């Protein structure tokens, strides 16, 4: 497969995952606002912006709806849902012959849906329907991808992009909530904090799955354990890294080559550290630093993928 094609598929997938994550984050937090005082709204939206990497040209103005509007519709803001979907489509457009026509049609439809939507300026109703439609659109594309595209190298690059983006997003959220709300683990959170922790679970679609595993007894250490180490829940960090590692192995197998030892080592080490990690051990050390370290490892893996498959130097490739 051409390196450029792998690059396009990877980013198509990451941008779609990002659009979905942003949509869900906005939806959950707009919803929580209905119950909240102005002061905590302030903190929450600063947190939302931080979770999206503090988009440039977008400072917290005190108006949640305005921020949500920009993060949803402003094509000029690179973090907005519209911009993410447009980037995903642009990447897909360059590899149209590699993806199935169903995939292209769904993505194209989502793009037109997003860009043609005219937000109603006069009322400040939550764009909830719209956000749900975006999430649904992305789910549809993922389903069509799984059922109409050959599960070969290209498909595996799509998985790599998706799980990479998801792992980073979940880790970033965990870090923010931990910094703000982590009190004494033996104490049950107060009502306000309780809502926030549920918000975290909802932002990762994890509320129901969490309740199944631990009942509705909300405790921060269990939430961190669940979102970090659960092997079965698709938005947990461990699950994402497992998926990432599986896809990388498949790609490595297809290439059938000697290079790539470093990538195997990096991804394998991260996977093992999550797979064999104990929550008590993790909580007893500096959790913030631990999460930062996972993010760093993800970045390293990303860079190594690029060095290996996309931006390699001609000399190394000729030797190998």
């Amino acid at each position, binding site marked *: *497969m*051409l390196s450029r094609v792998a690059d396009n598929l990877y980013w198509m997938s990451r941008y779609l995952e990002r659009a979905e994550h942003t949509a869900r984050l906005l939806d959950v937090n707009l919803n929580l606002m209905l119950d909240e005082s102005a002061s905590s709204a302030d903190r929450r939206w600063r947190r939302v912006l931080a979770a999206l990497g503090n988009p440039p040209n977008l400072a917290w103005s005190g108006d949640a709806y305005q921020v949500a509007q920009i993060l949803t519709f402003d094509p000029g803001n690179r973090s907005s849902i519209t911009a993410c979907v447009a980037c995903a489509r642009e990447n897909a457009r360059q590899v149209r*012959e590699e993806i199935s026509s169903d995939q292209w*049609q769904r993505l194209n439809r989502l793009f037109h849906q997003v860009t043609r939507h005219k937000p109603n300026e006069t009322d400040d109703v939550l764009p909830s329907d719209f956000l749900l439609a975006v999430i649904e659109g992305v789910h549809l594309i993922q389903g069509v991808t799984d059922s109409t595209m050959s599960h070969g190298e290209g498909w595996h690059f799509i998985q790599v992009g998706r799980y990479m983006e998801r792992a980073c997003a979940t880790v970033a959220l965990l870090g923010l909530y931990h910094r703000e709300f982590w009190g004494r683990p033996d104490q049950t959170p107060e009502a306000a904090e309780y809502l926030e922790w549920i918000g975290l679970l909802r932002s990762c679609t994890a509320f129901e799955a969490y309740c199944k595993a631990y009942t509705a007894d909300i405790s921060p250490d269990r939430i961190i354990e669940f979102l970090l180490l659960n092997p079965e829940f698709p938005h947990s960090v461990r699950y994402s890294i497992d998926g990432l590692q599986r896809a990388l192995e498949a790609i490595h197998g297809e290439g059938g080559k000697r290079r790539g030892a470093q990538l195997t080592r990096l991804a394998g080490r991260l996977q093992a550290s999550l797979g064999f990690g104990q929550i008590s051990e993790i909580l007893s050390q500096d959790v913030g630093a631990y999460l930062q370290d996972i993010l760093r490892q993800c970045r390293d893996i990303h860079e190594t993928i690029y060095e290996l*498959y996309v931006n390699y130097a001609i000399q190394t490739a000729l030797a*190998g």
Partner: protein
Amino acid sequence: MGLAEISRFDRPVLHDYLVDDAYDETFESPGKPRPHYAPLLETFSSLPADEIRRRKHSADLAFLNQGITFKVYGREEGTEKIFPYDLLPRLITSAEWSRIERGLTQRITALNLFLRDIYHEGRILSDGTVPREIVYSCKHFRRQMRGLQVPRNVYVAVVGSDLIRMPSGEFVVLEDNLRVPSGVSYMLTNRRVMKRIFPNLFRRQGVRPIEHYTQALLSTLRSLSPEGRPEPTIVLLSPGVFNSAYFEHAYLARQMGIELVEGRDLVTHDNVVYMRTTTGLRRVDVIYRRVDDDFIDPLAFRSDSVLGVSGLFNAYRAGNVTLANAFGTGVADDKALYAYVPKIIKYYLDEDPVLDNVETYLLNDPVQRDHVLQNLDKLVVKAVGESGGYGMLIGPHSTSAQRQDFRERIITDPRNYIAQPTITFSRAPCFIDDTLQPRHVDLRPYVLFGDKVTIVPGGLTRVALRRGSLVVNSSQGGGSKDTWVLNQ
């Protein structure tokens, strides 16, 4: 077909159908179809207007869903349009086709010999059959190609010649496209859609197939592989998604099962071309390029090009990679050189041209120039290096300001223009607003030249959809028709 049957479909669709001095593809005289169109017209006449509309709609939808679109330059992002498409196919009889086939084979053979000659000994120039200054002043002449050995001496492997039909019914060549001719994907997809919509018609009419074009293209490219590379890796080089013909590039690559690459996917090392893949560099042997000479190698040609591959020309010169078409073929489709093609055929093959040229005035000849300048309102003036219907003056449809503009341009740079009489080329009925209306059509068959000449029986019939218009280019409001070459 009796008169009763004609009058039956006469009412909904055929009223006011104009047949005049232009050759009409379908009707000998008003209400009297040519014999080979009879089954087609019978079928159409038996369909109610609603049903025709429904089928037209289903054809449009098929084009849109498959993304068979082209891009219009100079507008906002997302302006992909479907190529307008007419339901009624254009028919060519077997006898007409065999003449076209002979004519095009002769022409492309002679032009390849001509290119080989001017880039080597230049006999035809020394003999004075073609003036040197026409060749050397052409902006598509590539000095870099002098003395360079081209595999099988095939300079032009893929051709799309534009033919028109004169009022006499005779086909003539209007233009040779020897650089990167496009449109073949529309020929193929038109046919696929037509088969789905009118399966019965195909059975009744006996239409020769064209579906083997992509295989033929692939084996043509394979036959041009550099020596010692029996299992060549072939790629299609596209300028990328922003090119108006990107759909065609992707389509052909997929149909041939070869990689669609862009300049940034290719690297050269020690005069060998490689493509970057996820499993490392892979050697490339044959490049079917859809990028113009100017942009293909910033080291050899335009240094500001970002579409090209640095060092490609050197790899080509070293014989490590074949490009189809070769560099510098544009000199042979220069519109001024066009006037010499009949002499070129005679010179190399000692045959008379099977397909004639359109009469052409060369404007660096003072006598011809004076004549043209006095008759600008009757003639068509074209810039020699342009294509796609740009840079053209159609005298009878022009304003005096436009004529004045062209007059000045001709006087400043006569070598850059040619003039031809305004030809009312043939018309064919098109299904427009529920009626059949005559529109001007041309024909672009696709010729492949490798170890042998292959011309798939058919081509792209382009239609000037605006009433009375003579411009068929897709960028200027043109459409297309499926083209059926009949068994008989």
